[in-house]
């Protein structure tokens, strides 16, 4: 699939016209599904992710239940029509299974699972349209959906990726930058708690680059975090008027 590498940075601008430290256009909405206990849709540029949360509910199969806490199950999935080119097979790929685990582990520190022993909390993350940064958009959407479901959390989790393309550290990579870039580092954090819940690095960064990239990511996370809070608040303010 790899063709010739396009020029990713020209005159300080990225391929889609953004500056290196700019996020893409973000749109969020909560409570979009009626059957789910909590749901959210997050659009970051062309990436569009739907998250739904069910529970706490009875654990099926029974033997998976934990006597001291709720178990958290997460399924990340890319829909058949979400990618460009060939249709993606609907069977869960290795990548999807891994990302399900990564997203679950990014959210687990935030959820106070000891409040609901012997129950399960199910998180479904469905990628409707993929254009880079689906795991971070998934984490952002899932944490909104969890808050919408009323599951106790010590903080919302927001996530964004940083990376290096053409030797420049950039924020919020899209598909092309991810494919041809030198490094890609998704970061998830709980900003009010000041804790990072996920950090992955694919590629090579020098220690200085890493420090700068992390700072850039946390700045981006703070912006996404305030958008998350605004979105949750808006749902209730609308009714009040």
């Amino acid at each position, binding site marked *: 699939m790899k063709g010739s590498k396009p020029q990713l940075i020209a005159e300080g601008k990225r391929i889609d016209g953004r500056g290196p430290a700019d996020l893409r256009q973000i749109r969020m909405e909560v409570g979009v599904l009626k059957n789910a*206990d*909590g749901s959210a849709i997050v659009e970051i540029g062309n990436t569009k992710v739907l998250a739904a949360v069910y*529970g*706490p*509910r*009875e654990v099926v199969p029974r033997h998976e239940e934990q*006597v001291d806490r709720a178990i958290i199950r997460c399924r990340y999935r890319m829909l058949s029509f979400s990618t460009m080119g060939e249709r993606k097979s609907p069977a869960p790929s290795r990548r999807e299974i891994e990302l399900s685990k990564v997203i679950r582990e990014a959210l687990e520190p*935030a959820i*106070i699972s000891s*409040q*609901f*022993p*012997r*129950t399960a909390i199910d998180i479904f993350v469905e990628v409707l349209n993929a254009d880079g940064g689906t795991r971070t958009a998934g984490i952002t959407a899932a944490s909104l959906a969890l*808050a*919408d*479901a*009323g*599951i*106790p*959390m*010590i*903080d*919302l989790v927001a996530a964004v990726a940083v990376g290096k393309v053409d030797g420049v550290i950039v924020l919020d990579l899209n598909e092309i930058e991810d494919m041809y870039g030198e490094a890609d580092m998704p970061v998830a954090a*709980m*900003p*009010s*708690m000041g804790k990072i819940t996920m950090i992955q690095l694919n590629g090579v960064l020098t220690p200085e680059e890493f420090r700068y990239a992390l700072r850039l990511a946390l700045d981006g996370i703070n912006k996404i975090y305030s958008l998350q*809070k605004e979105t*949750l*608040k808006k749902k*209730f*303010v609308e*009714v*009040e008027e």
Partner: protein
Amino acid sequence: MSSSIQRVIRLPGDQIIVDKNVSIEGSNINISLYKLSENTYVITTVSLQDIGEDDKKIRIIPLKGRYIPKEGDIVIGIVTDVTLSSWLVDIKSPYLAILNASDYIGKSFNPSSENIRKYLDVGDVVIAKIAQFDRTRLPILTVQDKGLGKVVSGSLIEIEPIKVGRVIGKKRSMITMLSEQTKCEFVVGVNGRILLRCPDPELEYVAILAIKKIEAEAHTTGLTERIKEFILNEKVKRGLIKFEG
């Protein structure tokens, strides 16, 4: 409610600092607040905080959350499964509840001589009280009290459990107003199920609309008055009463 009280929406991650001599009020605060350190708490669910002139107490009202059984609660359940000598009842909580046949019948039950389905079957609705619950086992229900037992008539509506308090109102003000205005009899289960027995289907419809409106606007102030107005308007619209004034 006095106008000096201001309500703000709190979200997960918001920290509040509480002095030692300040008390925290509100339902379910052990779930909607998480103690971080000696005097710092974190809000864990979308909640309302009342900020008043009085600095001595903080009131937190969660806006989201599931029903967690508590001993002594009156709940409305739906039978989902039948075992040899007990029923499994869905009480809209993460845990199914158990209602023992011997408790329901009031004497010892012998499954070899009687069929349990004669008394209650899947889909039946019961009003019951939580007799035992400690999170390590499923909650046990009892129907041995006044007004409890199988439901044979009426209609059932569901709302979010966290908003049941608003449907009842302070000193039952809301529910009293509702039954005065709609002539319906209400049985409110703490788990978010409400049973209506109404003399008139039109009035029943108005009552359901009113309850749904309470649910949607549970976090606003001056709700009882607004709902009363709403019911009057709906009644006028349906020609149940004549327009007055």
